[in-house]
């Protein structure tokens, strides 16, 4: 918790959401630092042996999506029993998680955005090409404007991954044996939208994003709109599962 002062009843849900984001960032600061160092150091080492044509940061930022999903799921799984036992209502916790998810996605999105622009300057200074593995070809991301436009989607993508993780996390708490099975419908949808947006496979089981292959010709704004709709659907699902979740009995 950020401070020792007692939280006010009317505003504690927002304060907690902010607190979760700050605590999360504090907790994972060395992970973020390690990702930064590796993303910039590894290409330098690899360049001793071959030409650099791929964006390392793209992979780091993609790994951040998984990380964000785990943060959303892990936090809600842990917070439900502790927060409800501490006198928070489920509705308050839902709002806190919403604030947390938005702030976390924005913070990580800002880091991803800055990273890809920083990498562009770094690659440019060393004469490397900042490209993506788009199936058969390695496609350069493009101009500064193209790069910024490309990276601008990160906050939204992090949000949809955060929400996907949150739904699976709360479902796993609620239905101990079977909640995780929500992975089955959620992963293909989220992966496919990610796949369709960047026209490249997401990091992880890329085959799970097979539907994205059919979206390659879709207008980008349409896929963005679909991601917003899916994010809203996931938020509604998380709320629905959370709002009357019973606390598990303690094991003797």
């Amino acid at each position, binding site marked *: 918790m950020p401070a020792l002062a*007692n*939280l006010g*009843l009317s505003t504690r849900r927002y304060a907690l959401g902010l607190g979760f984001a700050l605590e999360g960032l504090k907790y994972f600061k060395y992970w973020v630092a390690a990702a930064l160092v590796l993303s910039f150091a590894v290409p330098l080492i690899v360049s001793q042996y071959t030409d650099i044509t791929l964006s390392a940061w793209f992979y780091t930022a993609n790994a951040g999506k998984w990380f964000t999903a785990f943060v959303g799921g892990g936090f809600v799984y842990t917070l439900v029993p502790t927060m409800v036992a501490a006198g928070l209502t489920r509705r308050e916790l839902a709002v806190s998680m919403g604030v947390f998810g938005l702030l976390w996605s924005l913070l990580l999105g800002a880091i991803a955005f800055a990273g890809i622009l920083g990498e562009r300057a770094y690659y440019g200074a060393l004469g490397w090409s900042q490209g993506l593995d788009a199936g058969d070809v390695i496609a350069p991301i493009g101009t500064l404007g193209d790069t910024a436009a490309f990276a601008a989607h990160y906050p939204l993508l992090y949000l949809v991954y955060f929400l996907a993780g949150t739904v699976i996390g709360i479902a796993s708490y609620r239905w101990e044996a079977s909640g995780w099975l929500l992975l089955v419908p959620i992963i293909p949808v989220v992966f496919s939208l990610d796949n369709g947006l960047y026209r490249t496979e997401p990091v992880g089981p890329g085959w799970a994003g097979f539907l994205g292959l059919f979206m390659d010709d879709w207008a980008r704004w349409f896929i963005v709109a679909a991601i917003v709709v899916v994010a809203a659907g996931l938020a509604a699902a998380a709320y629905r599962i959370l709002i*009357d979740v*019973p*606390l598990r009995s303690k094991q003797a």
Partner: protein
Amino acid sequence: MSFAITLRSVTLKYGAEDALADVDLELEAGKIYGLLGRNGAGKTSLLSLVAAFRRPTTGEVLIGGEPVWENAPVVSRVALIREGGDFDDTETVKAIIESGTIRPSFDADYAFKLAERFELPLKKRVSALSRGKRSVLAAVCGLAARAELTMFDEVHLGMDAPTRDAFYKELLAEYMERPHTIVLSTHLIDEVANYLEEVVIVDRGRILRHADIEAFQGMGATLTGPADAVDALGLAALAEQRLGGTKSITVAEPLDAATRERAAAGGVEIGPVGLQDLFIHLTDPNRNGA
């Protein structure tokens, strides 16, 4: 201010099984209650409903006259402390205490004072605590919550006898300083009997008895005296102890005047019934009319 508890026609089902069946219960504000019951009787389920940890299948749960479910002004002033506490085990003791400030009424200074008194290692992670220390941490958080309704569900399990004694005394001191409603759910009945004002016995998902402690003690008696004189009374004993020629029996029925006279004439002393003996008798599955 303290909270009264009202349950109206409350049923809680786990699947097809009734954990609580059509329970009606009224507990006045500002008293210390003992909640007794055998394992699986429904004590924890009942407390879970009162603290809004669960929602009843049917019926309503009111705290201070208001529905408790999703009622932030109420649940923020209700504390249910379960055995071992509901903590994130990866956090330190200090962080756990600090997180109590989610409650507007939580007294962090008091919590740290208690932590020092009970020798809680602030820098240790909860996962590294012994069972006893974990119970102490839970008890400290419960006391420092300064809630209007505080419920301890077997929270003393794992505490050694001196720690339990210190906990009960602190609980009583806190209650005297700031009257509020307290519910103690426990199997260590005789240990807490002196602190209780009223007792609720839950059995097989129903309220078996609810009365003040004197009424319970009046439901029976303990008779101690020469073994022959005790036997001559011809009473059905719930429990008996014998030391040399002296015998002590517990009976679960009020003694009439004639029996009292015969007891006195035989040199048999009459005392109040032990709550634990009575509890064992009342919840005996072979007993009719429980």
